[in-house]
């Protein structure tokens, strides 16, 4: 399998207050995978994504997206932040939030119009949230909010999707709805990278996995590397998951 590399991370080191939270990460993410990033709380998963997206400045190392720096490739990338990173009381509706996904392709100054609105409505429909389009976002449940953010990523029509814990606090139905959309994205040739905490579902949902805990422990196809050995190395305790099903 000689696939193109969607995201390449070289020698990445990131620190908030001088103490590195990511040490010398090397990572290659092949095009078209649905990849889970797993690791304990505070392992640096969100930090890794934020550094790849240029939201944080690394102290060393580099990131490239399809061979070029992220700055040049923004239009290829969409991002769903970890919940709680936005201001839920902001005066804005679900539709408006989804429309924000189109801002990137509009660039500076230009304003969204009918075309952008139509895209946003389609995305809302896709995640089953059309009925809620005029709701203020704090009046949505956690799972509904998560769907809105997924819709916002969908309208970006990117090649690579980063999602920070999209399943956090959502019910089983929503989780299945979301994973189906992610699988559809992969089918359409997109690369999807998801921070994921539920180890039980990794083999069922994903085909690629990265173990992270300050350092990169392992990365590769789920069927080859998702084993007790790597889990133990990542989580520090003797981990046993049954992945026989």
């Amino acid at each position, binding site marked *: 399998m000689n696939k193109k590399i969607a995201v390449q991370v070289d020698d990445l080191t990131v620190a908030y*207050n001088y103490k590195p939270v990511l040490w010398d990460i090397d990572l290659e993410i092949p095009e078209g995978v649905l990849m889970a990033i797993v690791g304990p709380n505070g392992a640096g998963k969100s930090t890794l994504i*934020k550094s790849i*997206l*240029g*939201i944080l400045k690394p102290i060393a190392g580099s990131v490239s997206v399809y061979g070029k720096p992220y*700055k040049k490739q*923004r239009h290829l*990338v969409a*991002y769903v*932040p970890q919940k709680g*990173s*936005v*201001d839920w009381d*902001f*005066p*804005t*509706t679900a539709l408006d*939030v989804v429309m*924000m996904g189109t*801002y*990137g392709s*509009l660039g*500076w*100054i230009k*304003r*969204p119009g009918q075309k952008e609105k139509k895209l946003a409505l389609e995305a809302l429909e896709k995640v*089953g*949230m*059309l*009925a*809620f389009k005029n709701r*203020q976002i704090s*009046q949505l*449940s956690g*799972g509904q909010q998560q769907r809105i953010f997924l819709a*916002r990523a969908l309208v970006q029509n990117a090649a690579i999707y980063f999602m920070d814990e999209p399943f956090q606090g959502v*019910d089983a*139905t*929503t989780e299945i709805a979301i994973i189906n959309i992610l699988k559809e994205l992969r089918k359409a040739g997109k690369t999807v990278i998801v921070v994921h905490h539920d180890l039980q579902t990794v083999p069922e949902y994903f085909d690629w996995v990265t173990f992270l805990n300050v350092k990169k422990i392992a990365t590769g196809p789920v069927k080859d590397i998702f084993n007790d050995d790597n889990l133990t190395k990542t989580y520090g305790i003797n981990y046993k998951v049954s992945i026989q099903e």
Partner: protein
Amino acid sequence: MNSAQLEIQIIASLVAIACAIPGTFLVLRKMAMISDAISHSILPGIVIGFFITQDLNSPFLILLAAITGIITVILVEHIQKTGLVKEDTAIGLVFPALFSIGVILIAKNANDIHLDVDAVLLGELAFAPFDRLIISGIDIGPKSMWIIGSILTITIGLLIAFFKELKVSTFDVGLSASLGFSPAIMHYSLMTISSITTVGAFDAVGAILVVALMIAPAATAYLLTTDLKKMLGLAIFFGVFSAISGYWIAHWLDASIAGSITTMLGLIFLMVYLFAPNKGIIAVFYREKQQRTEVSLLTFLLHLKNHNEESERHVNHLNEHINWQKVRSRSVLDLALKNNMITIKNNIVSLTKKGDDFTTQAIDYIITNENAQIEDMKEDFFLFRG
């Protein structure tokens, strides 16, 4: 109304609009305190600028003072980044220091300059019309009207051009950065505009009114709408309304104009805080009461659905069984009757078809807690709103 009166009202209204726009974003960014800090800490900038230019309205002075404002913001952020103190503490450390430098500078040179702390803090709108802008012998109006008018024009231009960037960087810093709209650029642009507006309005209305005009109208508007554009519009409206009504109150009571405007701002906020339809405390109180009744109603309907025996459905038995006070039972029964959910025959209560369907649907909703069709139901039933 003479022309000086008209000019005062125009100046006050222009200041109100110029403050409401950055103020809205400051409130949304939970940065109300920073406007207070800016308004005080620009004092040394003003004083030094005044030494150099000898003119309180010189553009150079405004620039210098605005730079002091930015320095304040940067200092606050720097102190905060050390992680030793919180943002409000950092603000509390920075602005008294800068402000007192300004006060000392004034005190030291009080003899040669007509600049005193009171005038700076409180301003005096009543005098604004006397300082005229005269170009080649022609009087074209009060200076402060032109200054604040120019600042307002720039602010509106920037707002229209960068509305979506301001919105997304205020709402979601991460998305904004990943889309390429640098949150830092937006942040410092907003701080610059806030500083320039503060300085420009300062001479005419004083520091306290500037802060009040930035924060109070926006905070009031915030209680009333879930749409950013409407919030901006309402903030401008409340600002201008307070400015003009405050002016006339001062006129009739022969009181300070700035004081009356600030009082109006406070009163309007209070009224909205009490009476706003959704977020006002009276509405919240009423809604909670309503919801309690509706939960009771649902409990009651469920009881009816679960029991076919007449003895369980007798009005008196219901009182005892569900263990409510008479008043509550009464209001629940009334509500159910009004909505055609039940019928009462010989004091025996039965569910109607509508009541039965409703109960089934409601249970469904409560159990699955997810259902788009329920949206229609919400219109006529409070319980499922929000």
